């Protein structure tokens, strides 16, 4: 009898745990992780920040610069319609808001103060690079990369 009560209690606890875990997983599924990087490109100085090698590879063929420094690196974990804000070193802000997620990617609204507002659709791993304005003799660049399963 005592064993039976223990078994029932244990089963209920496991079931409750499973339910809580499942609901947490559902909540996580709705979130969109976005890797954000703020970098400074300049024709003065030299060297490429090792943590921005991918960005450098993408930009090197398009633009001429001698130095690429990473100023900020963050991972935003946003729900649909949640706004993630970044304070840029030029005193402006950048806001990122996922609008929807479909098979064709995540539709993200991006507002870079002093530069542009836009809606971009990107699949996981797609790199979006936005020039955020002039900064200290070079250019401020913001890169966004949705990184979801």
């Amino acid at each position: 009898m005592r064993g039976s009560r223990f078994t029932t209690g244990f089963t209920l606890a496991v079931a409750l745990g499973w339910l809580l875990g499942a609901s947490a997983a559902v909540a996580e599924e709705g979130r969109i992780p976005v890797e954000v990087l703020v970098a400074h490109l300049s024709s003065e100085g030299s060297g490429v920040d090792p943590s921005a090698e991918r960005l450098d590879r993408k930009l090197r063929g398009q633009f001429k610069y001698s130095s690429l420094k990473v100023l900020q690196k963050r991972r935003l974990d946003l729900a649909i319609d949640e706004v993630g804000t970044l304070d840029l070193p030029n005193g402006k802000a950048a806001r990122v808001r996922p609008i929807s997620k479909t098979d064709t990617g995540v539709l993200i609204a991006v507002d870079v103060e002093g530069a542009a507002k836009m809606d971009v659709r990107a699949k996981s791993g797609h790199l979006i690079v936005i020039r955020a304005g002039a900064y200290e003799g070079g250019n401020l660049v913001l890169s966004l990369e949705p990184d979801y399963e």
Partner: protein
Amino acid sequence: MSEGRDDDIRRDEARLHAYHDGELRGFARRRFERALRRSSGLRRELGEIAAIGDSLRAYDAGTATPDLWDDIALRLPALDARRAEGGSSAGRSEGLFWWLKPIGAVAATAAVALVVAYGGLFTTTPATGGAVRWIDSGDRSVMVLDDEPGTTIIWVLDGAVEGASRGGSRARV
């Protein structure tokens, strides 16, 4: 009686437009030209149609209207996405109109089928837009570079630049 007259008028109008557009051929064309010679009303209407066409052509030729379609087309997916988001709250207030849903679904399916069919058969240019669905850069020029798969570079210039382009081998930073 009146219905019969309405039908006649509608038929005449259809023939008038078809004649004006050069769509009447052979016997039908000769018969309509005979009717045209007999009826001053038909001649007047034909003249009006021609005048409207002329004034539209003159407006197009003389007015530098910006081509807004690209802006509209870029905005549509975002609007659709927002509408889809709003769908859940709209669903709560639909009340007695739930029965319209199947009609909407059929219409949507037909529209999608048409887009797929016509898009597949008649598209002559590659789809534009890429990752950027809509952009507002105020008076600044923007270069969007998405030649490389998996990457989109949105280069917002500091001001409006006439003929902004990548230029040369590489743009200078």
